[in-house]
């Protein structure tokens, strides 16, 4: 029998006892809403009216010509409300929290995209919200911090450890442990203890379901490649999973290479990590020789995380997906390239996928098709990019 919450040998429920009852309650509630027509209808309605789904699948003609090879399509999650795919999961879990009768929502955020999405959902549902965010990320994502505050969310700075996403997750879990009876932890990626990786995948699978229909309608066939960036891995799982059984479709996950894998300053858990346990699940993990979690580095705050979703670890070992990395420099180039040729400024996270897809397209025949998940828009990264390029704003 498949063990509860496992993907091969990855996943599980490695959390303190105090959370186990909450996790059991959450799992039961989630299984229930999956079968509940009324819930699914409400989710569908809000996804359409409030999020703006379906998002377009855009044939990137200029980028395709520029690369001179495979046809490149962009799944435009950057057009979703609040500017990234994160809203799909935040909306689903927010509705679930409300249905469970929870009084308060907490979340962690790195780049601020999940924080903003959660803040928006909480404002819309009329629920109080606290978002934990590393001090380092607050510095590099000031605009998103202000957006959250505008929507009535309290942003709590986290000053422990590396002051980034991992530490924000630690603080959110400490809050959850303390207020477990009335608080819902709205985790933003396919990480954490079961049922989060499953639940987040299900709420994000709308990306792949739409993309599948859209590409069939545009090309009358499935793509050869799907490319997505991977930090925790929610946008990647969301677009990969509905194509899981289509073995002819190759999945490519692009991790953050930071200053290069050899430098040790990166966030590529699948390429540079070893199996371990963090934040409730067993997965690939960037850790030192003593099993302590390493500090990570990426130009994009949203990928700056030492772990990765357990399902990605399973995809890696089984060979269903292939994982590569793009470094900070490559991401910057992808960021500028897409802005220049398509008039779309991508999030730095998504720019990793753009950069890899552009390179891949050039090596392929013109009859090949690549779908890239453009997981978010880049407005939030303008300051960072300007600084790195030496531009005074």
């Amino acid at each position, binding site marked *: 029998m498949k063990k509860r919450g496992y993907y091969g040998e990855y996943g599980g429920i490695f959390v*303190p006892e105090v959370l186990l009852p909450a996790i059991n309650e959450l799992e039961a509630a989630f299984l229930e809403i999956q079968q509940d027509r009324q819930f699914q209808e409400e989710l569908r309605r809000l996804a359409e009216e409030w999020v703006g789904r379906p998002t377009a699948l855009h044939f990137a003609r200029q980028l395709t010509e520029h690369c001179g090879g495979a046809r490149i399509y962009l799944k435009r999650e950057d057009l979703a409300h609040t500017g990234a795919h994160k809203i799909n999961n935040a909306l689903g879990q927010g509705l679930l929290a409300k249905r469970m009768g929870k009084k308060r929502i907490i979340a962690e955020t790195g780049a601020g995209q999940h924080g903003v999405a959660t803040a928006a959902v909480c404002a819309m549902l009329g629920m109080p919200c606290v978002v934990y965010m590393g001090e380092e990320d607050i510095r590099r994502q000031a605009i998103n911090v202000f957006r959250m505050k505008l929507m009535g969310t309290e942003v709590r700075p986290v000053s422990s450890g590396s002051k980034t996403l991992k530490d924000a997750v630690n603080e959110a879990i400490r809050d959850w442990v303390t207020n477990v009876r009335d608080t819902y932890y709205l985790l933003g990626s396919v990480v954490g203890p079961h049922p989060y990786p499953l639940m987040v995948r299900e709420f994000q699978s709308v990306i792949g379901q739409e993309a599948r229909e859209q590409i069939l309608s545009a090309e009358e066939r499935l793509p050869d490649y799907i490319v997505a960036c991977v930090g925790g891995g929610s946008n990647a799982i969301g677009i990969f999973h509905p194509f899981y059984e289509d073995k002819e479709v190759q999945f490519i996950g692009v991790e953050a290479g930071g200053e290069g894998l050899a430098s040790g300053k990166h966030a590529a858990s699948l390429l540079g990590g070893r199996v371990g346990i963090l934040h409730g699940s067993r997965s690939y993990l960037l850790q030192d020789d003593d099993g*302590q979690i390493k500090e990570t580095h990426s130009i994009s705050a949203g990928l700056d995380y030492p772990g990765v979703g357990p399902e990605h670890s399973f995809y890696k070992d089984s060979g269903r997906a292939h994982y590569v990395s793009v470094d900070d420099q490559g991401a910057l180039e992808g960021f500028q390239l897409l802005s220049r040729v398509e008039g779309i400024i991508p999030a730095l996270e998504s720019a990793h996928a753009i950069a890899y897809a552009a390179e891949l397209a050039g090596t392929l025949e013109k009859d090949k098709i690549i779908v890239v998940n453009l997981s978010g828009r880049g407005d939030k990264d303008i300051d960072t990019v300007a600084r790195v390029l030496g531009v005074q704003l």
Partner: protein
Amino acid sequence: MNRIDTLFLRKNHKTLVAYITVGYPDIAATREIVPLLAASGCDMVELGIPFSDPLADGITIQQASYRALQNGVNVPLCLETAAELREKVTIPLVFMGYFNPVYHYGVANFCRECRQMGVDGLIIPDLPPEEGDNMEISAKQEGLDLVYLLAPSSTDERIRLVAERSQGFIYLVSVTGVTGARASLPAELGTFVSRVRKITDKPLCVGFGISTPEQAQNVASIADGVIVGSQIIRLIEEGKGDYDNLQTFVCNLRTALDS
């Protein structure tokens, strides 16, 4: 029968358990403090293995853990320190630590070396019974007690599960929350302890938030033992190498439990 079982056989004796982080503020201090704790009336010491992401701990133990890691404390050094302490004290020594460093070291190796070094048990707060099968097998093989935890949020069903699987004693977390001294303990602690007591005869030790002799005495009136951690770390920090206040505090705890 191991040292932990023997300890809980003592009639009319409440068990006092102290937690310290190995290597805080340095390894020499750990070597000195544990015998002092034993001499002042502690019945068992939890040796904390530091971890970079101690998500069940409040700020005091987080900082101790951070400092210990700065000092280069790792699993091999914790094992070595336990062996040295075993030469000096006869009370049970248990390791308390998050799962990843142990997992990384290798569960079977870790358990074997624990036995060789004279360690009696293990407490791993992020390893619930659902995930504990392998660890239980290795621990049992080496005669180590794998102690599971319960919290006020635990349902009766979970209390039964943990009661069946926990070895040595059951660690009752007094509050829904992280470790750390608290001005007062929750009013429903009594209800929680009696819910567990109804289901099992295993020894029950209560920890999290206990920082004064009065609190310890209150808790001991309903449980078999009390666990004190953050307050001990705080006194170690304040003492700056002088452990008189720590000794006085532990003696006072002992007196409170014995009265």
